[in-house]
């Protein structure tokens, strides 16, 4: 028995030593690209990363899904192999983030716009046809809505779509959407709610006079159970819509694209979220997707330059490229060409 314990002890010590000896050697260099950021851009970046890894001699990049804000935070932490090379974002980088980056030695950042994404307002395929304006969306979902007299706000009284506009169907308002941590929610609030909010004249005036109050009115979603936070998982929202034809859901265009026989999108301000409408900038609730590259890492991390080339190739982000098959809406030809040249020259944001 004593012998056996000795052997076990020796094995345990050996394994422990192994565990700690290895990272010291492995940390000194990194031979793969390290990408962090938005969960909306994640499905596109991963496709490029995988094809890049398979078709080149470089290792497949590592892509972490951290959300836009979390990704840019990691990105701006510093220069060197411990920090990401690329940050994906479903919004533009903020001035405060650029300053934080600069403070940590990340002075030169290359911005790459990759295309567009539409945020759809959709319901089950077999439910009644529907068409709304952004103003109606705002009235249906805001916590407080304008009362009878100008300048007054009341707790949102609308329970049915027909309460807002008699021409809309007599249906309970029920909307499933992402939680506040999601970039999709941010974009929906900014483009959909605020867009509808501005249609009311006295609130639009408020933007100039009292921008804090304007934000509070336009960006606050009601909390009385009409808007249901359904989590970050868009597949779950699609399933719930199928089960409940009266409910609406808010999610990204790529999920509509993949589930076209289960859910259909509502036209907003008279424009349905189709591939062409989003590409032509006609659909009102669409945003640009970006990624940011550390210029100092190009030429140091193996394959980074080649990865950028793959991403900006026509076979990837072109009209008929493999990213468009995954639901990315490409930029117009001349804009693509412009961005591709900027990438090649590594034009930094100033």
């Amino acid at each position, binding site marked *: 028995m004593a012998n056996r314990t000795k052997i076990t002890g020796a094995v*345990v010590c050996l394994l422990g030593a192994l565990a700690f000896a290895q*990272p010291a050697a492995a940390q000194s260099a990194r031979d793969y690209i390290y990408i962090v950021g938005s969960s909306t851009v994640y499905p596109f970046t991963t496709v490029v990363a995988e094809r890049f890894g398979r078709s080149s001699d470089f290792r497949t990049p590592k892509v*972490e899904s951290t959300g836009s804000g979390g990704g840019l935070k990691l990105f701006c932490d510093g220069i060197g192999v*411990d920090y990401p090379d690329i940050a994906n974002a479903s919004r533009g980088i903020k001035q405060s983030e650029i300053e934080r980056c600069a403070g940590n030695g990340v002075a030169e950042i290359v911005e790459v716009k990759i295309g567009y994404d539409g945020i759809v307002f959709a319901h089950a395929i077999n439910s009644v046809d529907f068409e709304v304006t952004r103003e109606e969306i705002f009235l249906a979902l805001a916590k407080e809505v304008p009362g009878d007299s100008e300048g007054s706000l009341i707790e949102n009284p609308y329970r049915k779509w027909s309460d807002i506009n008699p021409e809309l169907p007599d249906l309970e308002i029920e909307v499933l959407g992402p939680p506040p941590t999601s970039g999709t929610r941010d974009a929906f609030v900014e483009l959909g709610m605020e867009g509808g909010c501005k249609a009311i004249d006295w609130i639009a005036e408020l933007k100039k006079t009292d921008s804090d109050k304007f934000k509070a009115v336009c960006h606050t979603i009601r909390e009385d159970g009409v808007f249901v936070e359904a989590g970050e998982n868009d*597949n779950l929202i699609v399933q719930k819509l199928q089960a409940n034809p009266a409910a609406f859901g808010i999610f990204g265009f790529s999920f509509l*694209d993949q589930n*076209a026989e289960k859910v259909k999108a509502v036209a907003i301000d008279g424009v349905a979220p189709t591939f062409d409408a989003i590409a032509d900038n006609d659909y009102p609730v669409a945003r640009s997707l970006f990624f940011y590259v550390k210029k100092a890492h190009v030429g140091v991390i193996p394959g980074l330059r080649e990865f950028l080339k793959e991403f900006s190739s026509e076979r990837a982000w072109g009209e008929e490229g493999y990213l468009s098959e995954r639901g990315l809406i490409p930029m117009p030809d001349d804009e693509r060409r412009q961005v591709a040249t900027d990438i090649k020259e590594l034009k930094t944001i100033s």
Partner: protein
Amino acid sequence: MTDNSTKAKVEKGLARRRRNELIFRSAGMLATTVGVLFLGVFFFTLIQNGSSAFQQSFVLVDLEFSEDILAPDGELDLEYANFDAIPRNALRAKFPDVTSRSERRELNRLLSISAGYIARDMIEDDPELLGQTVQVWVPAASTVDMLLKGNIDREIVESLRPISDKQIAWVDELVSNERVRKQFNTALFTNGDSREPELAGIRGALMGSFYMLLVTVVLSLPIGAAAAIYLEELAPKNKWADLIEVNINNLAAVPSIVFGLLGLSIFVNWASLPRSAPLVGGLVLALLTLPVIIIASRAAIKAVPPSIREAALGLGASKMQVVFHHVLPLALPGMLTGTIIGMSRALGESAPLLMIGMVAFIVDVPQGLSDPATALPVQIYLWADSPERAFAERTSAAIIVLLGFLLLMNLTAVIIRKRMERKW
């Protein structure tokens, strides 16, 4: 007289007591049935959704390794040769009427993008193949696979389907020529993650989980056992010991995400160990399982009768000899059981791994403790969130595999307990 009245009292209440007994019994039975029912529904839907993922559709193509395509200037360049064209041409040869560019693109999409890589690997293994024609089964695209598994409705309008009328007609023709078949989906077990459902596998996640659990068990078993032995056998029983005990019990109930945050600040930020590495994941999970192991080990040590210790001490054994020769061997089954249960909890954890960067898209199967890796529960989470339809069944399949491992571990714990436990 008194006898009779007591008997009468008992008999009076007898019916009520029997009724209560029946209610109690049926309530228990009902609770068990509901529990079993939920479990049954869970397993049924899981197997119903996931079992089809263990099969994958393949298409038989005649790959012609034409020198004109692969080596137009007489020399074969493995990196730049147009291998994608080989399976595409093979498929096109079966449908000679397809001529327009857009139709050809649709036809190409019937095959997985891996077909080209398969062609390249074949040439790489055997350069002699150049100029020859070989029949090979290559994976079909995931849309074709979904169609053949009946997950795509053929009846609905074409624009609502991910597969066109023409493509369906081609697939049907291939099926009638017996050029399509389903076979076991080995890719699911041999590949790492992929964004193409037909190429995606759990090998990377499994290896990640394995390395993590290795680190966890190497650290938490000896530390947990040592702490338990010290606290039970050697530590003075005072209020400090009580305080430590309360804290250990408390730690066992702390939400796992807290351990993730701790791991992020200590192991990744301060000790600058690599992000996303199984080493860091294993360290975090070791912290998570330590309280569980200490509590189980202390219970096992406590269950060893004091008479054994006293007898050993009486024969002149030192404290250490008592522990290592008598207490530890008798407590070992209980300690191992606790460790296995702790490990199976660690295997199912995903929240703490989120903080240390293990929720990531990683294609390459990790080769060591510091390679970037994910874990099985994380892989399930990532697949469940993917828009492509075919990932739904793969999510369920991965859950089945995870449950299989959990079942195996818990079964081992039960067997160890049953076979090695001593009754006093």
